[in-house]
Every structure is written in C-alpha cells, then in structure tokens.
C-alpha cells in the first residue's frame, strides 16, 4: 500500500472539516502511513466469497407505534446552541461567495 502523503492528509482533513495546522499535517502523514500499513493486512485475510458483517447482533425491522411521545421543548433544544435567535439556531453564512 502506498504511503499517505502530506497532500493526502490535507485533502482528507478538508473532507473531514478539520483545519489542521502545517505542523499537524507533517506529523499526521507519518503516523497515518504507519497505521494504514499495519491495518492493510485485513485484505489478505479475506476473499471475495467472504460475506461482510456490519452489525454484531442481527435485528430486522424494529418498529414502534406511530404515536406522539415526549420530546424536547423548543427552549430545551436551543439551550446549548452557540447562538440562537427568534426560537431558531443562528448560524453563519451557509454558502461561500464563490458558490
């Protein structure tokens, strides 16, 4: 498996919405390469015929009655918001100028 470059980390960090510093990019490129080298062994353990398991205990179709239950009040839902106004979450501009 190819090593993870500094540019790879920068691209992944952008996708993950973490504004890493220049120093962090350097450190993480080395660490992630070592980790990926170590975990890549999984592909040698299995073949195409092996089915995948996504969940430890198989459960299907968990339904409940379609009834109104207790839920948070608007004030409770907004109580931890970094900013709120007029009973709503107040957020920064959603689209950048170029979008």
């Amino acid at each position, binding site marked *: 498996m190819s090593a993870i470059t500094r540019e790879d980390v920068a691209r992944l960090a952008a996708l993950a919405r973490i504004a890493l510093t220049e120093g962090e990019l350097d450190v993480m490129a080395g660490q992630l390469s070592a*980790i990926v080298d170590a975990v890549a062994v999984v592909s040698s353990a299995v073949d195409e015929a092996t089915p995948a398991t996504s969940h430890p205990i198989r459960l299907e179709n968990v339904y409940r009655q379609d009834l109104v239950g207790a839920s948070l009040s608007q004030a409770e839902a907004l109580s931890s918001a*970094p900013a709120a106004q007029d009973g709503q979450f107040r957020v920064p501009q959603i689209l950048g100028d170029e979008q």
Partner: protein
Amino acid sequence: MSQDLTRLTAAEMASQLAAKQISAVELTQAHLQRIDHVDDAVHAFLQVGADSALAQARQVDEARARGEALGRLAGVPIAVKDLLATRGVATTCGSRILENWVPVYDATAVRRVREAGMPILGKTNMDEFAMGSSTEHSAFGPTHNPWDLDRIPGGSGGGSAAAVAAFEAPLALGSDTGGSIRQPAAVTGTVGVKPTYGAVSRYGLVAMASSLDQIGPCSRTVLDAALLHEVIGGHDPFDSTSLDEPVAHAVDQARQGMAGDLHGVRIGIIGELRGDGFDRGVLDRYAEALGVLEDLGAEVQTVSCPSFGFTLAAYYLIMPSEASSNLARFDAMRYGLRQAPEGGPVTVETVMAATREAGFGPEVKRRVILGTYALSAGYYDAYYGSAQKVRTLVQEDLAAAWEKVDVLVSPTCPTTAFRLGERVDDPLAMYLSDTATIPANLAGIPGISVPIGLAGDGLPVGLQVLAPARADGWVYRVAGAVEAVLTDRWGGALLEQAPDLGKQQGGER
C-alpha cells in the same frame, strides 16, 4: 468511626442500608470525603456533584423511613463516565468541544441508576470521546493509577476504574468499544463487564462506533458488577439496537460461581491470545488462574480462533470509519464549541473546520481522518470492506468454539499498566493494549475482566472471560468462581494490597 464505609463492597453497603445500620447520606458523605482526600492525586473525576448526590441520598433515606419498596442498590453511590448524558450536569466526553455542554436529558442507563435510588457522585475522566487506552487523551489531563500514580489507569474508562480502585465510589458506569471497561479493570485490579451488544441501551451514550459501543458496570467484585448489570440492563424503545429480551440473571450466576463448583463447565483457552506480545508476569498469573479453573472441576482445553490475528487491524478500520461519521455531528451549530476562523470568509464550513481544529485533540483528529480515508472511494473495498469480512470470520471462529466450550478465556491485557507518557506519541503501541479485548466487540459477545493477582512488578493482572451472545450469566459465574478462590488464597481482596492513598492527601501532585 467504627468502620470505613468506603471499604465495603456495594453488596455489603446495600445490606447495611436495608437493615438501617447506615444511612445513604452517611455513605455518600464518606465517599465525598474520600474523593476530597485522594482525587487531587488520582484525578478520576472531572466533576463532583456533592449537593445533588446528598440530595438523592436524603430522598432514599426518607423513602426508606416511610417504608417504601426500594431497589437493591438504593442509597449505594455511583460514578458515571463522562460520555453518558446527565440532565443538568456538564457532559464533556473529555473534550474541549463539549466542555460546556449541559444535556437536557438523561441517558437511559443514567435514568435507571437514578430510578434505582443510587446517588450520582460525579462524572469520571476518560480519553476524549473514548478514544484511547490510557486517559492521556483526555483534554483535562490524565487519571493516575491508584496502584502507582506514575502509571496509566487504562482507557478509555480510566476514570471510572480508578474511582472504584481508589475507594472513591463502589460502582461506576463505563462504556466499552474495544476494551474501555475491561482493560482499565485489568490494570487497576478491579472488575469490569462488557455485556452482550444491545443488553444495555445506548440511548444518551455519546457515540464513538455505534456497532461496537456497549455500556457496562465497573466494580471491585463480580457480585457488585452483577447487581449493577441488573439495574441498567433491559430493553429500551429509545435504542433500536436494544435487545427486547429478559435481563441476564447476573446476580444468581455470580453467586453460583462464588459457591465454587465448576464441574462440567467447558472452558476454552484462546490459543491466539498468549505467548508473543504478552508479558511474562501476565502469563504467570494467567497460568495460575487456569489452574484454579481446573481445581474447581472445569474441563479446560485450547481452542483456536485464527481470525483473531486480524481483529486489531479490522477494529482500527471499522472503529475510525464509524467514528468519523458519528463525530460529524460536532459541527458548531447546535451545541458545543463554536470557533471563528482566524482569517478569510466566515461560513458554516470554515467555522466548522476551525471549531474542530480547536476543539478536538490529536487522537480524535487522527481517527476521524483515518476513517475518512478508509471510507473514501478507491479504498473502501480494500479497507472497510475487508474489515467487515474479518468480522464474519470472527463470528465463524466463535460459532465453532461454542460447539466445544461454554466460555473462552485469555489475559485481559498483554501487559500491566505502563508509565504515563510511555506510548502517548506512538499510536500503534497504544493500540496493542486492546489486542485481547477487541474480538468481543466485533462479535457483540459479553466479556468480563476479573483480577488474578500481581505481576512481578507489583501491578495487577486481569483474566478475561468471554461467553456467547446473550449468555452474559456465564461470565459472572466463571469470574465469580475464580474471584472466590483467589480472594481466599490472598487472605482478602487484591485491592487491600494497593497503596493507601489517603495518607498522601494528594500532596505530591
């Protein structure tokens, strides 16, 4: 004072409370005092709620005086890992990003503890978002192992384990994604249980890896863990992965084990979890524990689980993949930290990136980025897809094992507690702590760690017992049997041999 109440087991506390020999207020005060004396040195707690704990204790005493029917553990105090939502009490997950988050609801496990009349002493320290094996990744500083304050208490639930080991609480709640209850139990000489996946509701648990996370009890004895298991277990409509089945008879099974008969019980030694990578001192105690099992009449044989050679690798793909998705909720919009970018446009995207840079620590960033990589186009099949297939192999190996044996055993952790700082900059070395505990999470099966003595370095060693899914009672029975024999042999609980922190008064730290 005639007796030090904090030294009692939870079961003893419960019976003295029920007999009105002690009050819940007295018992809670004794623990708050102990926290006051030792927690500067141990740092098991991120927050202590003395007033609310005493108020809960008072309510229990009043209810008892009125002759009301109370739960078995009513009045026995408890500590709660800081990733379980507690209404009106800050829940930080050991992270700056949630430093000021005060939930408006209780996790189901917390609600059940409150309804059982158990005063909540406070919230315990942990690796940030439960990512780590030492508590060194807590944004608020590490917890120290009560056996040696220069060593790690395990992780991620090092705070809960240390609180119990240092007699600051008789019981604590933990969560186990790859060993975060069992590994801290092993290195602090305490008991920790990861129940069957779905046996305890995850509602209100801040998620790391949803298909692996499980809440469970931390305690000093097997019986105490069983008592707490029965309080928190059971179906919850708020968690669609919660099993709609009766709660395990953990207490009965623990008592049956403590009675000391394992005739006819078939025990499998996991062939892949011994030898290379395991310390001599750990293997010596493990060999003795296997001898105890044989002495009690169990049939012990070696069982091979070849897929276990790949479980660490599979875990470090599945867990970061699920974590990168789960932690996307920390977007600086609805709760938690909001940090403005230093320059450039201020948009939702730049604010989110600046907030996560400021609010997440290095291990969280590492895992989120690793998960983003493992899930990205072109790599998905080789990494995440293969890891999911390894999970099938683990299930198949275990299904074959259960044809031959009732429980599987291994050392809980390959080493005793390592020194603070020793592995914090070497993620791969840190990950090795979880070698023996991870398979249970991948398979959803129950597991316990129970103390089996001290290695040559004077530090505790744990035995792990694993059982089939939904057979949680087995782990209590076998661990209870081992505990009863060894406690008798030692002439008292292993923790009696730990340093008396009370005399230090936290002066050194």
